[in-house]
């Protein structure tokens, strides 16, 4: 057969293809967002008489200038911190009014009464490295998340989400309003069981 010239390609649909690609990229591209540990600072005004907290309800974490950790007066490696914080928060040693019916801890009398009373106190030196401080913060937040995940799974067994996932969905702007309405009370409920009481000591004026 004779060689024919190639027919001209119809370019009319090119624009459609281009738009299709454009829309595809628009939908799939996520602009990189920053992420980090959210914290709330205490207000500046001086508390006239600070509430009295029993010694057993305070979990003291001190980081010194050599980045060593002192937890409850004993040196500790950072890899054990999460477990220790979970054990403290989940202890539930209180009796009567302070009893904690959902705690699964050791019920040690010398440790916290219930998660609502338990306070973690973090103190650092001015020479402490920021990255070590972040590692400690991360582990303490992780301890709260472990417990919150457990309670969230216990209270909402059919949801198939952990607390952290649910919280992420809740703060995601793409989640529908109706779903947020469903998640909001569930998250608040768990947050009430394990309130994040992480206190940072005022910087000491002497050093």
């Amino acid at each position, binding site marked *: 057969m*004779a*060689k*024919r*010239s*190639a*027919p*001209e*390609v119809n*370019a009319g649909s*090119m*624009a459609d293809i*281009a*738009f299709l*690609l*454009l829309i595809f*990229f*628009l939908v799939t*591209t996520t*602009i*990189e*967002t*920053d*992420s*980090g*540990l*959210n*914290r*709330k*600072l*205490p*207000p*500046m005004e001086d508390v006239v008489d600070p509430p009295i907290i029993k010694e057993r309800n305070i979990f003291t974490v001190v980081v010194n200038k050599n*980045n060593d950790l002192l937890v409850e007066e004993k040196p500790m490696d*950072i*890899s054990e911190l999460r477990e220790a914080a979970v054990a403290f928060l989940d202890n539930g040693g209180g009796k009567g009014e302070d009893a904690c019916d959902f705690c699964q801890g050791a019920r040690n009398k010398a440790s916290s009464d219930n998660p609502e009373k338990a306070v973690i106190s973090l103190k*650092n*030196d*001015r*020479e*402490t*490295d*920021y*990255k*070590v*401080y*972040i*590692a400690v*913060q*991360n*582990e303490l*937040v*992780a301890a709260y*998340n472990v417990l919150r995940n457990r309670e969230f799974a216990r209270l909402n067994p059919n949801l198939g989400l952990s607390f*952290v996932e649910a*919280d*992420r969905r809740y*703060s*995601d*702007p793409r989640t529908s309003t109706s779903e947020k309405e469903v998640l909001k009370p569930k998250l608040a409920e768990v947050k009430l069981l394990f309130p994040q009481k992480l206190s940072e000591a005022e*910087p000491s004026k002497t050093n």
Partner: protein
Amino acid sequence: MSKFKKKKGGELPAISTASLPDIVFMLLFFFMVATVMRDSTLMVTNTLPAADQVQKLDKKDRVMYIYAGKPSDRYQDKFGTQPKIQLNDKFATVADVGAFILAERASKRQELQNVLTTALKVDGETNMGLITDIKQELRKVNALKINYTTRNGDYMQNLK
């Protein structure tokens, strides 16, 4: 017979360029969307520490950024190697933080002024003293919501 006339030459028909504008626009739109505008050039080293219990910092219009760290190489002969704070495009001292926050807050829309978050983008090698000072300044101007911006990763990386 003309029916079996040989085609002259092997030249191809010209490719239509009508769709070129579309392609260009597509690329333009793509880059417009995917580009993150960095509104201040970094003048400090900024290797963020790693953490894995992070929350996302959505809604960029509600965030104020404070950078801190050692001045980058090209600024070191002028500003030394001690960690410094960077606000917008300038090095600043701790005393400037309050004024910066108030100015930033005033520039935001009224309804956002109470929900602003301060993102602390601090280099991992910085000492806590500087951060404690910044936090005290933030408390003075009642900017209590803060976010320690981190990289996603295992915390053990921080201890090396």
